[in-house]
């Protein structure tokens, strides 16, 4: 184990001390111990960064995710490419965030820190169970490298943002637990509301960054795929959203005390549950990007159980401290509408949780099954219809009614003429419009931004996922092809724009008015020996054009030379060759001569084998006979071989008449109004950020009014 591994042990020791000192009310010692934990956690983090920067392949984790060809930027972000490193990142962010908790009101600090420290303890235990500091006994010359999908700038910011959100949800959990423990259920919001908004904001940003990443790299098909890993972060976000609405009821209308406590608890429990789902390996066969089991399943189950039992236990023991909430009166009055939002959001979260848990639930009565995407779409739609209706009614002002009615009819009608025929989609479009227009009647900027953001997001998703058009085109080099009567595609070549850059396919596209060149990336991953294609997106407000190369076949020349390693598969024109291994021909072991045959499968067919041979005859003459390739009018010869590296060099000769042009299969997708998805997300983030600043300002103003110096607490604590 590397130095950092021992540092984690020391950090664990300090952490336990901090927890002990807090529980015996030795605040100062506890604080020093917490700071020591943070220092050791940081040292471990820095060391792992260092290992990545200097490419120290003696560290198992570095060897698994780093390689010599990675640039510094991606070496740094490879830190969190795997399970162990991402736990360390989570720990590091959580530790640093905890320091900011020192500024919490003295009255709350001890309990909050205790419940926060328990979470840090859990993370430390997981890190010890699967340490990123394990050393390899044999140092490989190069690492396995980063999955090509992760070689993307968004990868550098999406995971840290997620963990910022996760850690902040942990702070929220610490506050609600402290509130229950101290039997103070009415003032906990005032000290923690900024943390809750911050948690909701960062998790939201993290999710949407992940969505943009998926959209841009295509690996997971579109911006959202209802994959368990995506859902695992979406469920806590939905519960957090419900909580924020519930808190509004509690602060203004004095109700929902119990529900809010439960929502805060379960928001965090769903983060742990999501971590358990995606990191224990139980969904490994159901999700595109969940991790394999590295032997921490037992611990994850244990931690989940401890947090579930502990928090619900404390909640149940404190049932009598909850003030009796005011009844919620009126049918279309704000408190009722807020309560409806809470219920709808919770239902939405529960449905997603049920779908994601399907592989765990279904074995109870049958075969383990997964639910397909339509389940999520079908069940979310009625909830969103109701939510949008609630938004509209909430912001309703009589003087804007004509606008709302006119536009809510006009926009669906226009959409209908543009091809939106699905009645459910039309209803949603009408409601999104009414939500947007009715925001005119609202005065609070953050409220308008967030709710119109949601409406725009839903509007964008309807168009982008329901009405995208996709065609696949087979293109031969320099031969123009007409697509949908409007576009003309010409495939020119595959070339690298500069020696440092990855090769791109060069396509000329004419949309009837002008010609432009699109360059979807198309490169050969040396590590895995295969073609990797990244899309090229032409971004427009009304419609994105998405180009991706599915397949590329280089031109068939009269003579092609191919170097191929054992176990590899390569294409030469339309011939696919897989090199299975060498065969020593016994019949040739004669007269001091010998022959080695290369066993090759043609076109992926194990029955279709050819064995060109390389014979060394007794006089030192070399015999390299040509062999026919079945199914193709081509001949093949084993030119040279290197037994120690397992590499052979082949010469493939094609008759002059069958020389072929290079071919590319291109997928061309038009995604209408996806821009609204991003604009809607940005508006929500902006709205949330404004509300956060506003709350910050309000806290300072309150202190000024009470004649309290703003930094007073800090001074006191240094006494």
């Amino acid at each position, binding site marked *: 184990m590397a130095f950092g591994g021992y540092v984690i042990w020391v950090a664990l020791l300090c952490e336990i001390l901090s927890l002990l000192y807090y529980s015996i009310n030795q605040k100062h010692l506890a604080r020093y111990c917490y700071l020591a934990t943070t220092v050791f956690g940081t040292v471990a983090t820095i060391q792992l960064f260092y290992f990545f920067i200097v490419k120290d392949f003696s560290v198992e984790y570095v060897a698994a995710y780093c390689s010599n060809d990675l640039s510094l930027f991606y070496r740094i972000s490879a830190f969190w490419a795997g399970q162990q490193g991402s736990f360390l990142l989570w720990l590091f962010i959580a530790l640093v965030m905890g320091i900011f908790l020192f500024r919490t009101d003295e009255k709350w600090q001890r309990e909050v820190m205790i419940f926060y420290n328990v979470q840090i303890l859990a993370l430390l235990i997981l890190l010890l169970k699967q340490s990123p500091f394990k050393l390899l006994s044999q140092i490989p010359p190069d690492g396995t490298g980063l999955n090509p999908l992760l070689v993307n700038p968004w990868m550098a910011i999406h995971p840290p943002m997620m963990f910022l959100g996760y850690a902040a949800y942990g702070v929220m959990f610490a506050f609600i637990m402290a509130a229950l423990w101290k039997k103070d259920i009415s003032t906990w919001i005032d000290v923690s509301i900024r943390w809750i908004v911050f948690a909701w904001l960062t998790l939201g940003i993290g999710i949407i960054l992940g969505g943009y990443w998926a959209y841009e790299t295509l*690996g997971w098909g579109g911006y959202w795929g209802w994959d368990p890993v995506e859902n695992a972060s979406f469920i806590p976000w939905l519960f957090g959203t419900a909580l924020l609405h519930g808190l509004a009821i509690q602060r203004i209308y004095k109700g929902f005390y119990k529900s809010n406590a439960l929502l805060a608890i379960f928001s965090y429990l769903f983060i742990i549950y999501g971590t358990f789902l995606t990191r224990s390996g139980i969904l490994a066969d*159901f999700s595109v990007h969940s991790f*394999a089991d590295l032997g921490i399943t037992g611990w994850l189950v244990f931690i989940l159980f401890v947090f579930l039992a502990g928090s619900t236990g404390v909640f149940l023991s404190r049932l009598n401290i909850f003030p009796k909430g005011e009844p919620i009166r009126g049918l279309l009055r704000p408190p*009722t509408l807020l309560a409806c939002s809470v*219920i709808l959001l919770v239902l939405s979260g529960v449905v997603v949780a049920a779908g994601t848990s399907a592989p765990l639930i279904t074995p109870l009565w049958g075969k383990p099954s997964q639910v397909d995407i339509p389940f999520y779409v079908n069940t979310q739609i009625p909830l969103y219809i109701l939510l949008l209706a609630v938004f509209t009614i909430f912001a309703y002002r009589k003087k804007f009614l004509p606008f709302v009615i006119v536009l809510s009819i006009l926009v669906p009608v226009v959409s209908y003429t543009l091809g939106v025929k699905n009645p459910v989609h039309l209803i949603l479009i009408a409601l999104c419009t009414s939500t947007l227009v009715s925001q005119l009647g609202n005065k609070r900027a953050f409220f308008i931004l967030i709710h119109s953001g949601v409406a725009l997001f839903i509007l964008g998703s309807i168009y982008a996922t329901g009405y995208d058009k996709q065609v696949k085109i087979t293109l031969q080099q320099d031969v123009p092809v007409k697509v949908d009567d409007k576009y003309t595609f010409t495939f020119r070549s595959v070339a690298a724009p500069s020696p440092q850059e990855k090769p791109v396919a060069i396509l000329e596209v004419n949309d009837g008015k002008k010609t432009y060149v699109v360059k979807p990336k198309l490169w050969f991953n040396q590590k895995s020996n295969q073609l990797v294609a990244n899309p090229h997106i032409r971004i427009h407000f009304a419609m994105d054009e998405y180009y991706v190369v*599915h397949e590329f076949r280089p031109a068939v020349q009269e003579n092609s030379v191919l170097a191929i390693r054992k176990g590899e598969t390569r294409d030469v024109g339309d011939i696919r060759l897989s090199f299975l291994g060498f065969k020593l021909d016994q019949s040739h072991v004669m007269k001091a001569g010998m022959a080695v045959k290369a066993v090759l499968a043609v076109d992926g067919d194990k029955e279709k084998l050819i064995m060109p041979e390389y014979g060394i005859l007794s006089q030192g003459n070399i015999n390299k006979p040509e062999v026919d390739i079945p199914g193709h009018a081509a001949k093949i010869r084993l030119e040279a071989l290197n037994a120690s590296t397992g590499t052979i060099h082949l010469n493939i000769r094609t008759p002059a008449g069958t020389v072929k042009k290079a071919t590319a299969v291109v997928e061309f997708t038009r995604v209408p109004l996806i821009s609204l998805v991003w604009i809607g997300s940005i508006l929500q983030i902006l709205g949330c950020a404004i509300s956060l600043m506003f709350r910050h300002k309000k806290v300072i103003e309150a202190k000024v009014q009470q004649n309290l110096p703003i930094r007073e607490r800090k001074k006191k604590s240094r006494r």
Partner: protein
Amino acid sequence: MNKKLSLGIALIVLFTIFGVLNFRKALTPYVSYREARSGGSVQVIGTLVKGSSTYVVDEQTLYFTMKERDAQDTIKVAYRGRRPVNFEEATSIVAIGSYDGRIFQARRLLVKCPSKYQGTETQREYGEVR
């Protein structure tokens, strides 16, 4: 007040029934290749038979053969989408779709890459211990 509450509860119950019905409809069970051949929307898991994947340019379709885990059975799969990144080195492939009497038509492919599995050895051991 009571009316509102009962209305709310009735709506939630209705929604739950709606949810359960949708849940059952959208279930795609994991089945053996033999069961997959009897039809229905299912998912199958296996490993790629080395060298079996071909992309037929004229049909714009990826064909490959999967070998069943812990069994000798194989199944031919057709997939009209893009060849997934890291397809050739996948340690396991999940195909979601249905058998059309001739070939398994995959709607979706889930591909597990070894880079995320850096502890493949550990994993195998773990599986045996269990």
